């Protein structure tokens, strides 16, 4: 059940500059009656894509592997359908100044990288739509085509799992003895 390791991303970026993009925007609730996790990319930002100016329907959007979004991306519900939809659309990373906690966890568990930049670097990326971006997951850097490079923080365990395609469930199952010991300690 090993996932594909994610060590670097080299792709054009798509910019959605709005702040506080909530998971209801990423995938509206009316699409959540599915029992599948595959094929949700067609519902990504479904309500936004009715606007003719929406960059997600630009012919270039299909090649974009990086989403640059405003502050506090992924707030709201715990629906993992949000990262599933973004990944299926083609994104491998989302860049913002901050992420909601549950979204960040859900993203990393599915191999979608979250890149948290300081506001100045973030502003630069917000104004660089369609530009090629290079992300080094191991070194935690984002590089633009003009050579400017920015560092980002990444939880060491999340990085370990992303870079090595670690399956966290298998990791947890290895703790069976500790879990049993804990349960015994509580009943005694």
């Amino acid at each position, binding site marked *: *059940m090993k996932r594909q390791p994610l060590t670097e991303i080299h792709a054009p970026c798509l910019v959605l500059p*709005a*702040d*506080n993009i*909530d998971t*209801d*925007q990423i995938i*509206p*609730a*009316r699409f*959540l*009656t*599915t*029992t*599948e*996790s595959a094929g949700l990319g067609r519902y990504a930002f479904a*309500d936004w894509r009715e606007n003719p100016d929406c960059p997600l329907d630009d012919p270039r959007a299909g090649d974009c592997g990086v989403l640059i979004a405003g*502050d*506090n991306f992924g*707030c*709201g*519900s*715990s*629906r*993992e359908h949000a990262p599933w939809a973004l990944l299926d659309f083609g994104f491998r990373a989302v860049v913002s100044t*901050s992420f*909601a*906690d*549950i979204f960040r*966890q*859900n993203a990393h*568990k*599915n191999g979608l990288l979250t890149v948290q930049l300081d506001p100045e670097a973030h502003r630069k990326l917000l104004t660089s739509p369609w530009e090629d971006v290079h992300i080094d997951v191991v070194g935690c850097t984002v590089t633009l085509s003009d050579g400017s490079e920015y560092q980002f923080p990444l*939880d*060491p*365990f999340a990085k*370990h799992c992303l870079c090595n395609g670690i399956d*966290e*469930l298998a*990791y*947890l*199952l290895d*703790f*069976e003895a*500790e*879990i049993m010991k*804990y*349960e015994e300690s509580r009943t005694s």
Partner: protein
Amino acid sequence: MTQVPSTLFDKIWERHVVARGVDGRPDLIYIDLHLVHEVTSPQAFAVLASRNLPVRRPDLTMATMDHSTPTEPMDIAGGWSGIDPQAAQQLQTLCENCERHGIELFGPGSTHRGIVHVIGPELGRTRPGMTIVCGDSHTSTHGAFGALAFGIGTTEVGHVLATQVLLQRRPKTMRVVFDGPAPVGVTAKDLALAVLSRIGVDGGTGHVIEYQGPAVRDLSMEGRMTLCNMSIEAGARAGLVAPDATTFAYLRGRGEIPEGTEFEPMVQEWRGLRSDDSAVFDKEVVISCQELAPMITWGTNPAQAIQVGGELPILDDGNREAFAYTGHAPASTLLGSKIDVAFIGSCTNGRLEDLCAAAEVLRGQSVAESVRMLVVPGSETVKRSAEALGLDEVFRAAGAEWREPGCSMCIAMNGDFVPPGQLAVSTSNRNFAGRQGKGSRTLLASPETAAACAIAGEVVDPRRFLSTTGGVR
């Protein structure tokens, strides 16, 4: 050796560490209660099936159906006619998964079915000091009991099903102190919206919030649930209120909790679940209670809230899109804005006390001709209790629809929704663009405010409709 003062959060966390994270790894935290519903579980059960894994502790797992269930009465065959076929399949999948793994399910026809965060407490499953998770962000609700309760994604639902533990980074702590009692007419929902308007939609990110102060102590358990419920709207995965006499009175004899002499040792243990006086929090916020009033949101996130009679903010870059979507005029007032829908229900305000409060306002009054009002009890138990009090008659007589339990118009995935462009006053928790239906516009408020607005057909200060003896509830 002197004991380091610790917070309520620290105490619960420490008791649940199965394995301490070393070399930069997160802690492994044991989960005491796992709540499951139809929307975020099928893919997790599928992972277990693909790996041939059992559910490790079905006895610590409890399932219900709420999100995609219709709120129309069931037909005589015990099914929902007119249900969306995909929703029906999702419900069926949950039935099969629970059957296969021996998980208790409050399914169609169950007298205890209801919104997951309403029935956990109601059945006495939610208890102080527990760790509780659910594939739903409003799991924070259960923090009202002094339980560490937080929402998880579907991958983590699978982790808990298979192992009963979660890999978690220890969050930071934040204390929100209400510096006095709440003024008359200010409800738990107003306290929650006041906190949000103060700290913003990301003010609690990375933190667990503990609510303290007289206004919190004065709240009933139901009010505390409303307050903790909306912690996630500030980005905090969990909210906490330390258990006290109000908590113990609620729990005594509830469900399988004993009420006699066996209950006392439980209380003794729960009394220790409080933050030490000198405990240090990573962040502190003090809310001045004197200035509080009934609140209402105007924008497209729950922190865009004002006092009902207050002035909307002036236009700026941060709110331009919210004003464009909602159509309200900057620097004006919401008072007098015509509403189309009033919705009472959800895990935020769908409990008996909420329905009582709305019914008090509506008794002998009529919902305005132009308004559709939907009252959706949070559970079968809430519904029965409300009907025993005759509240259904009050709602019907006023012209409101009295529905079956479920999440309904809060998330609008069961066929109940606010049509495009319409303005709804809702007691739910999110006013995101399209949350209550594509193109819907939402004003979040308390049950009292929603009921008052329904009568007036426009946004009004609910205190016009409240008896002068009303206070915090």
